[in-house]
């Protein structure tokens, strides 16, 4: 989140799209309700069905799964045509005024494509998407926003096609409902008002997921809502520490702190790597990457990493392609991946095209799983779809302590880090994950010392000594960062050996700081909790809230630098005065920025100094991107999901032109099959329940939760049920091109048929929590979902695919 949970109370309009907070983030409703009760805020929900959140909304509008860009694009068009944008904010804080390359063309001219498309490589040459530069190399601007070549005017032209009538035809949202949403949210464009957008997997789990997020960010930039209390672009993340696990770099393309993984092609040497990062950073804060990267290498290989050996840069593995989830399982299916090591995941239930992914597991030589229950993944080899005698995978299951049974920290969706002590005893011989890693590392080190082997140095020289048994607080100190030696500058001692860093500004590129995760720097540094107790920052439980905005600066520690609301420079106008007194975050006091948050801006740079309005310090040009390149374009364009019941009404480019289509075992019973509407005419989506959790490992084994939601159901409209002769409560079969499952039919009024371009399109929904293990069992909805992903992240398109439904025992 750019903002945080308690901050929701400061909002004037809470717009929920692709999320269901009442169900899946229940405590958030405390703050949403406070905004409604105390500020008169409106809750607006846009969703394919009437969710539990929608029942609390002032305005609910339905939309067909997979048409968010059409809807949000329609809202941008509304805001532009009705001049509801926050003009001063847009002019100063975004790149609206920048003149774009005159050779740029967009979908309005190129029938759904942008200039530079190569159909063979299914990728874009971005050279026509660039800024026009003046003689100093700075972007040319028209601050009046009138020049037809400026980003603002290109935006206007691009979204002019997204009229309310088009929204109705594509999304199935009646025009009056769409306009009610647009009008309510556009009102937050008024200076001093703020609206927040809450979104989750309903926005991201699409082949256009990244552009879905982009269009929400653009809407918020136009309305001046970023950096404001009660505003922002707020991802309601899933698991308790998915924010932290992402921050720690457990994705193939990032190291801890979003430092990119080196690539073989682009980063053959340390200097090439650092040069590329600094160049891409422009004026942005990531020009400091050399300090963070060197500090990471120093943390990982300690004193072995020196300037002379390029800080052992070559010890880091380099990537030569896309190794994300879907390609990973495709490589497992072909036998290229031989061993799989899992910590706390259940892909047998949660993976897309789950039958294909379980088949992939059966190709492995070996699999290690650190788990708390014997899940569908642990026991995949004896699942209902497997013959154990023909599964050669050797499986090692290690019993793990759960979250209450070990100490450590987690990060909320609002970037707040909270420390948890060990509060319960793990059962039997279950062990901490850190103990497991430590033991396996020591075994490996022993083997490499005794036998040698392939390039053992990164293992043997690893800076790994957390005690025996390992002390998690020693790991925390390394993540936080510490000085490796005494450093004196201008007669001042900056730090002494072993001393904790107070923040990432202390990171240096010379081996004198070892810091595992720069954005966390300071999280373990001792600070006052507001009540006179000094303790590691993330352990604090200080309840003082001096501003009354709910910032709670003394509770835990928010990354980065305990900044609670990102881009907070935008909460003040060009002169440094807050847009509204009840939304005052930071302001210029004549000498420095001060106020109710840590300024997200150079503390002593005056508003009228050079760069005084470069409010987005992480961007290369310091401005919010209304025109900003992703793989499928610098502007979001509607494309249909890969499995869609209709033709794209915006252009003849049916699907996202840059996505990868996989073809493994195509046409076979288990394979990368794509369904067509003649066989599978019904739109399907998957979602979550309040009573279960993800793939069920933490909920379907518990009697209380099993009792509340015992079985898989498919949610079906009354109209569709009537068409198919299906009665509420009877068993039905749901089929896709990839599999078929059995579910109980839940016939409700929460789904209504959509009218898409004049014809009826039905939609159904299924919770995806179920599997054959545990107390509450059922078929896995992911047996139906496709193995295709977003054009930038390859996040699977779980949210919009095609099925057919019929009564069990009859069609």
């Amino acid at each position, binding site marked *: 989140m750019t903002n945080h949970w308690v901050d929701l109370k400061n909002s004037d309009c809470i717009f929920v799209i692709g999320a269901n907070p009442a169900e899946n983030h229940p405590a958030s409703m405390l703050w949403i309700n406070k905004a409604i009760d105390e500020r008169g805020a409106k809750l607006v929900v846009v969703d394919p069905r009437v969710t539990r959140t929608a029942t609390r909304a002032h305005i609910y509008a339905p939309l067909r799964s997979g048409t968010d860009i059409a809807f949000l694009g329609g809202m941008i068009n509304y805001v532009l045509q009705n001049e509801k944008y926050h003009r001063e904010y847009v002019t100063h804080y975004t790149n609206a005024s920048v003149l774009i390359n005159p050779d740029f063309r967009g979908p309005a001219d190129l029938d759904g494509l942008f200039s530079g498309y190569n159909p063979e490589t299914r990728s874009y040459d971005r050279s026509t998407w660039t800024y026009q530069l003046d003689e100093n190399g700075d972007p040319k601007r028209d601050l009046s926003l009138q020049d037809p070549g400026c980003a603002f005017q290109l935006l206007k032209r691009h979204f002019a096609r997204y009229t309310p009538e088009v929204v109705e035809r594509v999304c199935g949202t009646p025009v009056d409902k769409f306009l009610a949403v647009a009008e309510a949210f556009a009102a937050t464009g008024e200076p001093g008002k703020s609206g927040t957008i809450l979104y989750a997997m309903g926005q991201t789990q699409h082949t256009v997921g990244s552009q879905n997020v982009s269009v929400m960010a653009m809407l918020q930039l136009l309305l001046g809502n970023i950096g404001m209390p009660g505003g922002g672009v707020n991802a309601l993340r899933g698991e308790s520490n998915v924010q932290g696990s992402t*921050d720690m770099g457990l994705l193939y393309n990032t190291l801890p702190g979003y430092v990119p993984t080196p690539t073989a092609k682009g980063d053959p040497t340390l200097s090439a790597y650092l040069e590329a990062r600094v160049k891409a950073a422009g004026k942005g804060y990531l020009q400091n990457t050399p300090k963070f990267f060197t500090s990471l290498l120093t943390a990982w290989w300690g004193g072995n990493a020196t300037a002379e050996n390029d800080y052992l840069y070559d010890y880091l593995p380099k990537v030569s392609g896309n190794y994300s989830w879907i390609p990973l399982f495709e*490589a497992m299916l072909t036998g290229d991946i031989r061993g799989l090591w899992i910590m706390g995941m259940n892909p047998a239930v949660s993976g897309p095209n789950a039958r294909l992914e379980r088949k992939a597991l059966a190709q492995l030589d070996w699999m290690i799983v650190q788990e708390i229950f014997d899940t569908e993944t642990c026991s995949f080899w004896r699942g209902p779809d497997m013959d154990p005698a023909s599964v050669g995978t050797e499986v090692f299951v290690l019993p793990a302590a759960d979250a209450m049974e070990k100490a450590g920290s987690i990060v909320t969706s609002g970037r707040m880090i909270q420390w948890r002590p060990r*509060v319960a005893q793990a059962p039997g011989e279950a062990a901490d994950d850190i103990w497991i890693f430590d033991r*396996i590392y020591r075994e490996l080190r022993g*083997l490499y010392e005794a036998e040698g082997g392939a390039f053992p140095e990164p293992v043997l020289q690893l800076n790994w000594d957390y005690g025996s048994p390992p002390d998690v607080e020693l790991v925390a100190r390394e993540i936080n960062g510490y000085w490796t030696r005494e450093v004196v500058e201008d007669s001042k001692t900056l730090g002494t050996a072993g001393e904790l860093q107070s923040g990432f500004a202390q990171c240096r590129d010379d081996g004198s700081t070892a810091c595992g995760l720069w954005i966390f720097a300071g999280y373990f540094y001792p600070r006052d909790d507001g009540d006179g107790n000094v303790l590691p920052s993330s352990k604090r439980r200080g309840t003082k809230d001096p501003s009354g905005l709910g910032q709670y600066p003394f509770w835990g520690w928010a990354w980065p630098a305990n900044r609670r609301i990102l881009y907070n420079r935008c909460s003040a106008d060009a002169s440094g005065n807050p847009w509204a007194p009840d939304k005052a975050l930071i302001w210029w006091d004549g000498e420095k920025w001060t106020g109710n948050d840590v300024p997200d801006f150079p503390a002593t740079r005056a508003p009228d100094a050079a760069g005084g309005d470069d409010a987005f310090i992480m961007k290369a040009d310091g401005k919010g991107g209304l025109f900003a390149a992703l793989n499928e374009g610098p502007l979001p364009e509607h494309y249909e999901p890969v499995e869609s019941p209709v033709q794209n009404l915006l252009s003849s480019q049916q699907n996202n032109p840059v996505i990868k289509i996989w073809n493994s075992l195509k046409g076979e019973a288990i394979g990368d099959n794509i369904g067509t509407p003649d066989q599978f005419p019904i739109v399907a989506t998957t979602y979550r329940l309040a009573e279960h959790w993800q793939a069920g490992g933490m909920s379907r084994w518990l009697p209380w939760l099993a009792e509340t939601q015992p079985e898989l159901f498919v949610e079906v409209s009354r109209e569709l049920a009537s068409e198919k002769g299906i009665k509420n409560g009877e068993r039905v079969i749901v089929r896709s091109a990839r599999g078929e499952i059995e579910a109980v039919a839940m016939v409700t009024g929460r789904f209504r048929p959509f009218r898409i371009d004049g014809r009826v399109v039905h939609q159904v929904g299924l919770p995806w929590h179920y599997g054959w293990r545990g107390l509450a069992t059922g078929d896995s909805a992911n047996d139906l979902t496709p193995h295709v992903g977003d054009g930038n992240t390859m996040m699977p398109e779980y949210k919009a695919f095609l099925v057919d439904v019929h009564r069990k025992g009859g069609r």
Partner: protein
Amino acid sequence: MIVGRRQFLKLSAMTAGGMLLPAEFALAGEQVSLPLHKPIGEAQTICPYCSVGCGLIVATGPDGHITNTEGDPDHVTNRGALDPKSVSVTQLSTSPHRLRKPLYRAPGASGWQEMEWDEILPRIARRIKDTRDATFEEKEGDVTVNRTRSIAFLGGAANNNEDCYAASKLMRALGLVYVEHQARI
């Protein structure tokens, strides 16, 4: 002595890292003695389910298992409110289905066999080393890549930052490039 609820929690937070457990668990000399009918520990922690990060108060019995879970009224985000999952943390702790011992499944086998830690961990290390050594790539053309594309790591969004950091560091030190988890899907 009469102790109010919030005082009780503050006392328990000051002793033995938040647990009033039998003497072998408590730090010597720091245990607080109170006139209770049954020994009970109470501590404040954070819920392990969604990303709101609500405050919990868990009560533990003398064996260290959770006997009760409720909302922490002092937590600034949830103010004592909870949802169905967070109150069920109790059942996570006490479930008879929790894995208690390492399990091994041989290729082609139809069932599990229990195995001691001291036997299973060396076997695991042997597998990792043999696969890594057999598939390690030092170079791609002229460029040093120092990786193996034949081992993958998945996990874990319910794990602590420190667990995840250790995983991220160890897997890269081993040369893994297929490193992914819930955030991708």
